[in-house]
């Protein structure tokens, strides 16, 4: 079919054509970017932490009336309380292993140190999140050692909360090792924090940091494990239970800790938390944003489809007589159907081309204002195809109605 008559007809409806095309262009621009945001959020939420999350729970508690100050007596006193708590938790039914820990992946509270390769280096090579725990920490978390050795009881030191002395040995994540020592083994290498040295004795495959920023970054996996029991007036324990026994163990933990030593506070809500809960909270904003974007996209696509149906229906009504004339002159039903389908394809095609420009423009603007990544071409291509398909789907009903116009209409007055 020649497109000439279609173009000629469109020229008589400039305003309507421009409005549909504009609507399609705006929809494409916004939906592409919104779906890209959704995709990014889903990717972020699905990132692995590197730990074996099932069957883990975390106890955060605060002692009452522990000795003030940071003298060796106070530290030793707190350390004995801490070791007693570890024992208490270990003896609970269903508990497989327990370790003290300063923070957990995704729980938004972290200790970050600048790491350098020489003692007098000015700018640090990377900022790493430090996880402090004992020789049971790695097995409790279930992180996977890929090189070197794990900590033994002999590696573990204990010190006061605000004592930042580095232990002689640390274990780093693969991402940290690759960043510090690209293309070589990190095992046995010395690194510095605040000009003080420590030696890398092991590398774990993956361990995510505590902070959940709005956008995924490589630095989210720059983590270092230090064999330190930290003795402050707060303590945190990570507990791994046997499958299916987590709920009972969480229930029993509170009672057992209070029975062993009542001079403490365990917050009713936040004191004992499963890791699933920590993960849920960490990504609440991302899920919310993804849902919001999805709802807006859905409404926008529906409105655009409905707009196409409405305007095409109007045109069909307006051209009843002309359609009748064409039918009377021998055009088949399918020709009329195709006419409206091709017309829509041309309008939508124009809209989509403008929409691509708008989509890229909007993305560039978002990149300049917020921490947005570049919109991959794939999203734009899929968006183009989707909107053309939406146009075709929307035009089908009015176009079919047009194809059913009887040739007798040609003889009737408009």
């Amino acid at each position, binding site marked *: 079919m020649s497109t000439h008559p279609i173009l000629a007809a469109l020229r008589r409806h400039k305003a309507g054509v421009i409005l549909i095309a504009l609507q399609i262009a705006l929809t494409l621009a916004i939906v592409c970017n919104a779906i890209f945001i959704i995709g990014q959020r889903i990717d972020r939420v699905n990132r692995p932490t590197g730990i074996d999350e099932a069957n883990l729970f975390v106890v955060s508690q605060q002692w009452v009336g522990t000795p003030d100050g940071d003298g060796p007596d106070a530290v030793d006193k707190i350390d004995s309380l801490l070791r007693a708590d570890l024992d208490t938790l270990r003896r609970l039914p269903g508990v497989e292993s327990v370790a003290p820990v300063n923070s957990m992946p995704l729980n938004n509270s972290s200790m970050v140190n600048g790491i350098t390769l020489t003692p007098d280096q000015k700018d640090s090579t990377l900022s790493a999140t430090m996880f402090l725990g004992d020789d049971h920490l790695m097995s409790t978390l279930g992180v996977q050692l890929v090189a070197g050795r794990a900590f033994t009881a002999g590696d573990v030191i204990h010190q006061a909360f605000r004592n930042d002395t580095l232990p002689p040995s640390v274990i780093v994540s693969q991402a940290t090792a690759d960043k510090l020592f690209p293309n070589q083994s990190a095992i046995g290498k010395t690194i510095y924090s605040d000009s003080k040295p420590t030696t890398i004795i092991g590398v774990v495959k993956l361990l995510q940091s505590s902070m959940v920023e709005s956008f995924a970054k490589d630095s989210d996996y720059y983590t270092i494990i230090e064999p330190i029991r930290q003795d402050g007036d707060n303590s945190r324990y990570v507990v791994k239970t046997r499958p299916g026994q987590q709920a009972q163990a969480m229930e029993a933990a509170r009672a057992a800790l209070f029975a062993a030593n009542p001079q403490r506070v365990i917050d009713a809500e936040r004191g004992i938390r499963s890791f699933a809960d920590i993960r849920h909270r960490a990504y609440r904003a991302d899920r919310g944003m993804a849902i919001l974007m999805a709802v807006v996209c859905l409404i926008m696509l529906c409105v655009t489809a409905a707009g196409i149906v409405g305007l095409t229906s109007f045109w069909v009504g307006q051209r009843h007589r002309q359609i009748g004339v064409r039918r009377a002159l021998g055009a088949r039903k399918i020709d009329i159907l195709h006419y409206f389908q091709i017309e829509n394809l041309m309008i939508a095609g124009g809209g989509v081309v403008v929409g691509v420009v708008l989509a890229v423009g909007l993305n560039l603007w978002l990149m300049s204002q917020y*921490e947005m990544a570049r919109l991959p071409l794939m999203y734009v291509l899929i968006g183009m195809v989707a909107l053309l398909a939406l146009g075709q789907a929307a035009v089908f009903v009015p176009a079919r109605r047009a194809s059913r116009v009887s040739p007798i209409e040609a003889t009737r007055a408009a």
Partner: protein
Amino acid sequence: MFSYYLELALRSLKRSPGLTLLMVLAIGFGVSASMTTYSVFRAVSGDPIPWKSSQLFVPQIDIWGPTSRRADGKPANAALDYTDAVAMMRDHRAKLQSASYRVAPTVQVPGSRQHPISVSGYAVYSEFFPMLDVPFAYGSGWPVDADTNQAAAVVISGKLNQEMFDGQNSVGKTLDIQGKDYQVVGVLGQWDPQPRFYDVFDTGGFDTTSNDVFIPFTRAIAVGMNNAGSTSCNANPAETGFVGLQRSACVWIEYVAELDDAAAVQAYREYLNGYALAQKSAGRFNWAPNNSLLDIPAFLDDQHVVPSDTKVSLMVALGLLIVCLVNTVGLLLAKFLRRSSEIGVRRALGAPQAAIYAQFLTEAGIVGLAGGAVGLVLTGVGVFCVGLVLPTDIAALAHVNFSLLLLTLVIAVVSAVLAGLYPTFRASRVQPAWQLKSN
């Protein structure tokens, strides 16, 4: 005349119920999506202390020097270290001022058999309360000399007062905080400013943690009550422990000063400059003063307190509204031009263009009003759903109120009338002679 147009409009809308419904729904959805996201945006970008925010200032001193500055050259430390905070309190150059840091002590009523509970609060100076217009249900803040005497005084929240003293007037009673006795001097009324402008450093802005205790800063330092907020260091403290933190260049103390007029602000800037120069000549810094003194709105902006998610979703929702309006323009155009012959007759009978404008804009306005009504319901649903999906600290702030509902209606009507302008313009240009002839 208006009632006649109203009747015409209703009749016309009834004639094509499908198209009308489509326009009403498009406007309803567009407006409600915008209003729902706007309710969140409004909640997080609001001024927490509007009557005074331009007189409250947050000073920052560049204590880490050129190697640690932000990309824009400002100091990277968004809080103060102990040395400077205490020196600035001692110099006392503002009308009112207070350094503060976050504490999380355990509290219990002395002699009670209940388990102690852990609460969150701040160590502050006496001027904190009058400066921030903190409301009291009972009593007041502590006197200035309590700061110097390191008095064991405490101001508690109404919530803690309810838990500890059954909501009675507890002024004068004793509360055990971290194993030591404190005398209650005041009980707060309802006070939950969001964002927490006096502590963006620890909270990032929004915080659902209740601030239950306020104790004198000097007392908290004297008893070694640890900083429960963030600590940010450019180098590890040379000495360990809380005392080591106080002697270090780590930042962990927030500071607010009240400066009532431009002259006071200028004088305070000069004071900070002089202070930094003195520190330089004392050998503590080896760089030129690089201070910052921002009022609360500017400081909140500087610290990016409004989450970028909120802004992006507001803009996407506004995009939806625009798409809905373009859609409405198209549909109104179709609808109005379908009635060309009717317009022709009216014009031929003497109706001026203005009458055509009035008639069709009335019709657009009615569509807008109906869209607004749908939008009201959907906005209510939207704000409720936002509470289910967004982070609690932000969702808790979004709410429906009269001004939001009014705005929803106004935006719906205004946007529908705007959308009706071009179709009406086209309708008013219909040539009566041509229409009459072609029929």
